[in-house]
């Protein structure tokens, strides 16, 4: 069997069992919908505070800033759907020693750990984020060309890969620090910065959010593409960042595993 069909089949199995093992659908779904609505309303409200006495935030008008918020909402949905459940599972696997079983399987362990679970309750949020981006872009007077739409999609995919890689880098540290639930919280809370356009930050913070943690590439850059604004960073750079982070996550995981396999008991 080739790589793709085999991994496709594995994914299918992973996700069907993940769906089957979820209980209390209605409860989860209502909580998630409420959280989504509350979060969006709250972010909208806080964003609007910046426009009470002014016309722009870091050179972005109200509708344009909403496109950034849309991109943030979409990526947060990706995190809810795929990243968060799997990260939590890694920590549990390391803690109770079941990681051994994963390592003994003839399949890439990073693939297994990153895709094992899926939480479909995050899917509406992805749709909502995309909807907000398109709606706000139209309100801002942008009429995105097919090319702009395509590059926005590519950039959002690259952003998802970057986000995933950051998240996996953090998760991999659970090999050393068995309890790292809070690492998710750090990531989540720093990424909150992505709710606002990168130019809304003072220059020091801006370079931190571009060079150290590529928050700029997660939300601002896709929003710029959709609005056809003079981009702060070109598309190839965003792809490069995503590829670099992904490679880093793989190398780091391999290093962590070497440590695990030479030290665990």
């Amino acid at each position, binding site marked *: 069997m080739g790589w793709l069909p085999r991994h496709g089949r*594995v994914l299918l199995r992973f996700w069907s069992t993940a769906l089957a093992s979820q209980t209390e659908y209605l409860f989860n779904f209502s909580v998630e919908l409420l959280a989504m609505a509350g979060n969006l309303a709250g972010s909208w409200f806080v964003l609007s505070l910046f426009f009470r006495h002014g016309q722009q935030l870091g050179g972005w008008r109200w509708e344009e800033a909403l496109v950034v918020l849309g991109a943030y909402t979409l990526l947060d949905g990706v995190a809810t759907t795929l990243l968060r459940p799997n990260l939590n599972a890694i920590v549990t696997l390391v803690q109770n020693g079941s990681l051994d079983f994963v390592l003994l399987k003839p399949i890439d362990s990073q693939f297994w750990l990153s895709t094992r679970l899926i939480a479909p309750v995050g899917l509406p949020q992805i749709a909502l984020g995309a909807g907000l981006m398109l709606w706000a872009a139209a309100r801002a007077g942008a009429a995105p060309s097919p090319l702009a739409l395509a590059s926005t999609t590519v950039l959002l995919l690259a952003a998802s890969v970057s986000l995933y890689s950051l998240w996996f880098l953090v998760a991999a540290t659970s090999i050393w620090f068995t309890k790292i639930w809070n690492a998710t919280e750090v990531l989540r809370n720093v990424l909150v910065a992505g709710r606002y356009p990168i130019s809304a930050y003072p220059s020091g913070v801006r370079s931190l959010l571009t060079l150290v943690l590529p928050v700029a590439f997660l939300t601002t850059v896709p929003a710029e593409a959709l609005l056809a604004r003079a981009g702060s960073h070109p598309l190839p750079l965003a792809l490069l960042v995503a590829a670099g982070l992904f490679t880093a996550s793989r190398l780091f995981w391999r290093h962590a595993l070497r440590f695990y396999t030479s030290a665990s008991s």
Partner: protein
Amino acid sequence: MGTNGDAPMAAGAGSIQVQGLGKTYRVADKLPGLGGTMRHLLRRRLRDVVAVRDVSFSIEAGEMVGFLGPNGAGKTTTLKMLSGLIHPSTGTVRVAGHVPQRRQRSFLQAITLVMGQKQQLIWDLPPLDSLRVNAAVYGLDEADSRRRIGELAEMLELGEALTRPVRKLSLGQRMKAELLAALLHRPEVLFLDEPTLGLDVNAQARVRQFLADYNRRTGATVLLTSHYMGDITALCPRVLLIHGGQLVHDGGLADLTSRLAPCRAVRLDLREPVPADAITPFGTVEQMDGREVRLLIPRERLTEAVAGLLAHFDVLDLEVSDPPIEELIGGLFRQGGRP
């Protein structure tokens, strides 16, 4: 039962060679309590702990070997090195023709590890769902995996337990389902770490029976650790005994018994009580309780001593036995001695 899926393997396919295997850990000591924690924070004291030292043995394909030793002797560490989860510090290992720690796909397809105290089945779902995931991961096709599950489920007498959520299964059923999940891909080498841990006597016996059948039918190599001597005596003609990280015995179970127990136990029922020093010439008196006497007699003097006892005393009943192996090994480990 259809057995064409379980054709015996090519000779040598599942063999294990271990040469000079060793593992040293570096650990940080921590004293209990708050003070200990603080001191630990400020100044870590690192210490090398030798878990396994210069272990060599080789196992032919199809053998069933028991792996004995007290807690902390290095059994689990050795099993993890053999299955590629831990890198050895010294020595070389070949399992089914592979170097385990390279963890090549073909190696992982050829082995399995069952850990009695850990589980891989998804807790909230029936075992069948976990089995389907495993089938996909090991690249078994649908029809093949269904046939295989059917076969193993029949051997394990699992029946409808496969369609009930794992959390609702009894411990015995859960362990059998774990075995099924571990054997789905037809491994040639089975590493079993305490597969009967916590099971009741009946469930233990069934798991044992299954392992014996499985080994006979497939010719798979089995290396088994257990706290229950019954598992070892029932399954393993050959045992490895590890103590303090070192291999102290490699051979038949009977040899081990005679090495550990050069004496036999003799129990006497006398018509009338006799003074202890009347019996001491015949052997070491273990216990004397009125008319009941228990003594140990070296094997080579057994016949002579028994004849003497019968001639000198009014014996109602006499029984000769081997001391139970648990006691022998337990005694050995308590003394910290070597056979």
